[in-house]
């Protein structure tokens, strides 16, 4: 049941990230659903399961991407490990504020990583446009976290057999 749930989550996340969200493009921006799902996997699943989720989603996104093969796998795995390690110090990512902070930080870092790969291959970037896009993506990712905070945690706690949480803690 757990394996089926995780595989289903991975496939659904990848399909939505490459087909639905880019076609929808709220305000012209593609939100980063993969980042949000990996965050909650790192919070609710065992470490190896969360990492397997991150690696699988990353590989699928790398296959769908035409460039920088491996970048998404590496970043999502690194993000997952970082969340797991920080959790062990006592940080509570099940709190909404922590989840939003994690996704905002990771989202900015991710976009900087992509921009670095563009700079290394070519010379100039319109920084004003790049900053505008990063800002808008960050805002939309925050809305995504607000919308999916309970459903994702409920789903993952269900597939792991734990009592689902019903309350939002800030």
């Amino acid at each position, binding site marked *: 049941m757990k394996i089926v749930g995780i595989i289903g989550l991975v*496939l659904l996340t990848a*399909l*939505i*990230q*490459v*087909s*639905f*969200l*880019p*076609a*929808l*493009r*709220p305000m*012209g*921006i*593609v939100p*980063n659903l*993969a980042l949000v799902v990996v965050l909650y996997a790192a919070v609710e699943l*065992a*470490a*190896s399961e969360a*990492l*397997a989720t991150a*690696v699988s989603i*990353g*590989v*699928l*996104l*790398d*296959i*769908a*991407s*035409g*460039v*920088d*093969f*491996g970048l*998404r*796998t*590496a970043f999502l*795995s690194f993000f997952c*490990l970082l969340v797991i390690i920080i959790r062990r110090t006592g940080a509570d990512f099940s709190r909404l504020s922590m989840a939003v902070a994690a996704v905002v930080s990771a989202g900015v870092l*991710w*976009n900087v990583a*992509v*921009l670095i790969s*563009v700079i290394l*291959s*070519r010379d100039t*970037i*319109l920084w004003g*446009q*790049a900053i*505008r*896009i990063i800002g808008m*993506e960050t805002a939309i990712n925050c809305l995504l976290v607000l919308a999916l905070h309970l459903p994702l945690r409920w789903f993952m706690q269900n597939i792991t057999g734990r009592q689902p949480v019903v309350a939002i803690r800030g």
Partner: protein
Amino acid sequence: MRKKGAQRVLIVLAVGVVLVLFGRSGVQAAGGIFGSITSPVARLFRIGGSGSGNFFRFMGQIKNLNTSNDRLEREVAELKLQLAQDNELRVQNDVLRRQLNFNSIPANKLVPAEVIAYQPDNFREYITINRGSRDGLRVGQAVVSEGTLIGKLANVTTSTAQVFLVVDPDFRIAALDQTTRTTGTVHGQIGRGLVMEKIPQDQTVNVGDTVISSGLGGELPKGLILGQIESLNHQNNEIFQTAQVSSNIKYNQLELVFVVVGQ
């Protein structure tokens, strides 16, 4: 217990590293198979996303409908007049082409393809289509939509292919102004569409001129439309001029494209 968990984490990490570093071709081949299996589902997701996106964009544009309508009616009247004149020119053009044995892209050299996936992030511009090597596609072939060059094939598997779009900041193509025959290089800019640069200072380009591929380098055929000159940036202390190039293509909303095979 913790040791076992740490071992599992290391194993998963190792698998990930191996896949990324050493298994790229295998992963991409598997990805091609995966793509062909999930293509119908991806298509449905894409249609759902496009429909929802179009609905919200329409709701945001309602208040401008009246003004747009008046402007469009005027444009239609002007275009009808121009069409009548162009029909005459087309007849003359056909006669001349037959006499000189020139060939435009024949219809049977275009392979239609649906877009099933897009780049999953914001700064790079690639799309995935549901045609591959079994349909005659090869890396480097030009891809057009509504008569405009939108990119070239970058990766091709048996049943899918990835299109490197012209609006990607890494895309470069030698181009020329169709009217003045001025040459330059067109490339994508993040968030700003296309720009034509390396235009010599002593050469002329005019706002409204059509920009086409020049065929230099032999990568892509000559004569494929890229867009129209929207604005010029001419500064006397610079070696080259630059021009902003725009087209009617909505690169973020592509649904049907055509691959030019047999070029």
